[in-house]
């Protein structure tokens, strides 16, 4: 039973069509990458999955229900999103930020209990953020902030984790750690993962399925070997590339030709 089912989704901002006739499924055991040029509708697609945008036509199912049937809190318990950046006007402690991930599980007048703090603790351990739990969020570097936001998403205990360019600010060590963590969550906890990235090799190496978006339509969808081809890259990105096999695991590897 797929955890996300999109059928012929159409969506437009004002008059401009952003997503057209998009259909795909995501299974629980899958890591799905969404790639595509700037403005191809990647972030919009993520927002359609978590119900903060509703499709103009077509159906988006998360779990058993259509996204428009969910209350906000209810869908936030199923789908968590890690945004690219978040404004930090007021100084919050890192711990407080992560604790906000428990919001969809709590009533208005209920305080967090031991269980909530345990979940937060775990999320921070996994993302390697415990060291700066008592520091202010707005004093952290972009990479550290990104890890805190991932911890907050994990604290939501979702079934689906959406990531919008989360690796962009991470250094190599944390990028690797982060990908290992994603795979662990995916394999051990059955968390379905959908990530948007500009790093095509990263997608090719780590995703089970890749969705290549072009002008709001799905240009190609399938396993990395099917999607990452010199022809697709030329058509969509208008660049010449060489695609060969990665020396370690034989996934497709792309090299830009100049």
């Amino acid at each position: 039973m797929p955890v996300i089912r999109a059928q012929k989704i159409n969506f437009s901002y004002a008059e401009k069509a952003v997503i057209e006739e998009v259909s795909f499924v995501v299974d629980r055991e899958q890591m799905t990458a969404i790639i595509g040029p700037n403005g191809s509708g990647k972030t919009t697609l993520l927002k359609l999955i978590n119900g903060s945008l509703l499709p103009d036509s077509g159906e988006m199912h998360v779990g058993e229900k259509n996204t428009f049937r969910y209350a906000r809190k209810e869908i936030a318990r199923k789908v968590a999103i890690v945004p690219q950046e978040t404004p930090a006007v007021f100084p919050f402690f890192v711990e407080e930020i992560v604790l906000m991930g428990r919001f969809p599980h709590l009533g208005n007048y209920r305080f967090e209990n031991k269980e909530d703090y345990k979940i937060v603790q775990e999320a921070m351990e996994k993302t390697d953020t415990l060291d700066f739990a008592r520091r202010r969020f707005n004093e952290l570097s972009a990479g550290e902030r990104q890890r805190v936001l991932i911890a907050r998403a994990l604290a939501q205990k979702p079934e689906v984790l959406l990531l919008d360019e989360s690796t962009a600010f991470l250094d190599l060590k944390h990028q690797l750690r982060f990908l290992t963590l994603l795979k662990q969550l995916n394999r051990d906890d059955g968390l379905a993962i959908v990530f948007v990235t500009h790093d095509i090799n990263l997608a090719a190496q780590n995703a089970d399925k890749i969705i290549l978006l072009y002008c709001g339509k799905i240009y190609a969808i399938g396993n990395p070997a099917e999607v990452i081809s010199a022809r697709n890259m030329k058509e969509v990105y208008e660049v010449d590339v060489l695609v060969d096999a990665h020396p370690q695991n034989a996934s497709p590897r792309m090299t830009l030709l100049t």
Partner: protein
Amino acid sequence: MLFLFFVLCFVSLALGSVHIDAGALLRFLGKVLTGKVSIESQEELIIFSVRLPRILFAGVVGAVLSLGGVVFQALLRNPLADPYILGISGGSALGAIIGIVSGAGSFYLGIPLLAFCGALITVFLLFIVAGGAKGALTDNTLLLIGVVINAFFSAAILFFLSIVDSLELHSITFWLMGDLSRASLSEIGVAAFCLIVGFILLYGQARKLNLIVQGEETALHLGVDLERTKPWLLVLTSLIISVVVSLAGIIGFIGIIVPHMMRLIFGSDHRLLLPTSALFGASFLVLADTVARVILTPAELPVGVITALCGAPYFVFLLKRKGL
């Protein structure tokens, strides 16, 4: 915090155009606390029927205005927002003045109701003019909008002042500058009731405020039902502010100073920020009002003068530090 509030109240009880020494005051308070409310001297009369209600009222007003500051700062993600700067107090005052001039004030709750309408219209205007901007409203734009709205309301208020007969003029002018001396006991009761109910309801939204401060998008992603939460918060806050403004006039800057100081001390978590701001706001206004009563004895200043004299420089300091 509570301790600070009580100490301030005590000091404020003792000071005034008639000085009362601390010993006598303590004896009197002891008597009241043990349930004997017989008033034996003129001093006791002053304490009980003049100063005590006034201090209570100052506390309520200070708390409400500070809460208003906290909520608007969160909703607009701007630490300089406050009911006064944004023109919401002005809108309430205009509503109240229309009530006084037109005679609608003679109906029960007529004036507070009109003040509430004024406040709501201001909030509405604020969001319309701000153009439904999705992200954080940039500081400059927001403050500018506030200034413009304030200028418009001031003009309207002046218009009504100029057509009103001169007997009422002095009292209205005094009230406009923030006057805590005229509220009756029952009015104080209404204000206190609004404060308590408003606080309890706002406190239930504290966690949502934390999320809204992270950006509306984030709040939405984490499960805040913005379409319901935002109007609810705006109406609730406008209501308590307009009640207070219709009784006490325009008292500015508390809503900026108090939440800012509390954030420095306690951090930004609204579950702490709301109660501490309410308490400190109460203390702050009691103090300001005491100063206003004492400084020109036997005459009195409107308390709004004192808060503006402290608040305006503080505001400039905040603006400068943020490097706008």
